[in-house]
């Protein structure tokens, strides 16, 4: 781990080939090109394509091109790379760019949980059955096959990070 003096200020760098285990708390941005296992607290975290972070992370901004596993709390997250099973990402804002090429993935998601924005509970509440839909003309749907009332999806609700 080398504290770097870059052109835009200090940052802590975990270089490729370096493995760090334990708690890392920093007042300057952290860049991970190697492997970090443990808790990370910093104003910003950047994980390069060769990097991986496994553990509990609390940062202001996070940008990842590498591998993430564990629990991540951040204000702003930009994701690429891989998100492993049993990972939780909580953020005020999340950006995952859609890969321009079909078949290619910007992010490979394992079984994980995303909690983004603060209004998801309000959204759930506002989508109640008695919600008034906006008025306006509509075109009758074509090719729709109405059927017997559904009993609803019988698939079990998501209860844990494994979906078990």
């Amino acid at each position, binding site marked *: 781990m080398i504290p770097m003096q870059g052109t835009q200020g200090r940052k802590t760098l975990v270089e490729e080939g370096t493995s760090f285990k334990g708690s890392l708390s920093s007042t300057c941005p952290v860049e991970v090109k190697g492997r970090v296992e443990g808790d990370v607290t910093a104003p910003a975290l950047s994980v390069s394509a060769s990097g991986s972070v496994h553990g509990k992370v609390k940062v202001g901004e996070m940008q990842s091109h590498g591998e993430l596993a564990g629990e991540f709390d951040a204000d702003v997250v930009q994701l690429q790379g891989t998100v492993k099973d049993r990972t939780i990402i909580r953020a005020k804002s999340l950006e995952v760019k859609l890969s321009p090429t079909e078949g290619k993935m910007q*992010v490979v998601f394992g079984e994980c949980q*995303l909690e983004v924005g603060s209004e998801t509970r309000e959204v759930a509440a506002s989508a109640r059955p008695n919600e008034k*839909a906006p008025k306006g003309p*509509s075109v009758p749907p074509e090719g729709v096959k109405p059927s*017997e009332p559904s009993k*609803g999806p019988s698939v079990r609700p998501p209860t844990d990070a494994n979906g078990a």
Partner: protein
Amino acid sequence: MPELTADLVLKKIKIGEKVERADLRGLVLTRAVLDGASFRRCDLDGANLEGARLSKALFKNASLREAFLAGADLREANLESADLEGANLLGAKLAGANLNRANLEGANLQGADLSGARLTHAQLASATLGGARLIRAELAHADLSETDLSTAKLDEADLTSTDLSGANLEEASLARAQLRDAVLRGATLLRADLSGADLRRANLSGAKLEGALFTGARVRGLVGTGAPVIGIRAEWVDDSEEASRAVRVTGGQIADLLAGLTASAPSHKRYFGQGDVLRNAHLEFNTGAAVEIESLFEHCTIALGEGTELVIGRGGVLSGCQVQGAGRITIHGKFVEREGPGIVGATQLVVSSEGSLVGAVEQAQDLTRFGFEPGCHLRVQILQAKKERSTKGGKQS
């Protein structure tokens, strides 16, 4: 009377002091050198800043209503959320400026240089932008209704989801511009250059297109003019879902497509309009269909054929529903499940900046391509495909 005189303002700026929250109404600072000065939250209504040098100046949340800024150099200035209603910015240099959420209603921006400027969510209704340069400008979600953009250069500009209703774009250059989901209802596009522009899902109803150039434009899902289109220029247009140029339309079919009279893309379109409510229904959509929902769906199951495109519009709400199948789903509205997983097997799932998704998503066998725009709201559990999960479970035990 302004709180500070022009001399005092210049003195303060010269010694590097900020001029913030000051009452500077009607102040005369013509041709003043004010590069990098901070006028944050100042009241500059009616001020005369003609020809002033204001590059990188800070006007965030400032009020500049009816201000005279003709010929001013505002390159890379920060005018975010500034009120410039009725301001005169004739020939102003605004390249790289931040005008996000600014109010420019009725402003005069004729001949102004706004190349690379950021104007997302800006209010430009009835503004005059004739001959302005807006190359690569970011205008997503801006209100450009009834604006005069005649002969303006908008090449490669981002006009996604903008409101251009009734705008005058005569002879404007919009080559390779992003106009996805833009509303061009009743707009004038006479002799405009739209070559290579992305017009997917744009609304052209009532627009005038005579003499416009459309070669290479992406037109999938656009709403046509509703009347026969004559005199357009186009060798081919791209009618593929992914703008991959895989589906080229040529000849007379182009005019039919732009008019909304063709049997190609629109024939596969299913639209559920605002005000409709569907409860406990089971819907199946064939391969290649395009489905748009602006209604309220409750406890419905929706089966998507391979490659089917499902768009939940801004007004659309899917509550307690399940969507299954190898389709591509885009959520601009709300999707809230009661019992999961709400989405099963989609090949692509995009939640736009205005979209909300609450529920579990079971990925496709070959994984799902995800796209999440900043501003979206998610409470999502991502699951592997069932087969994948059971294999994993077996291995673990």
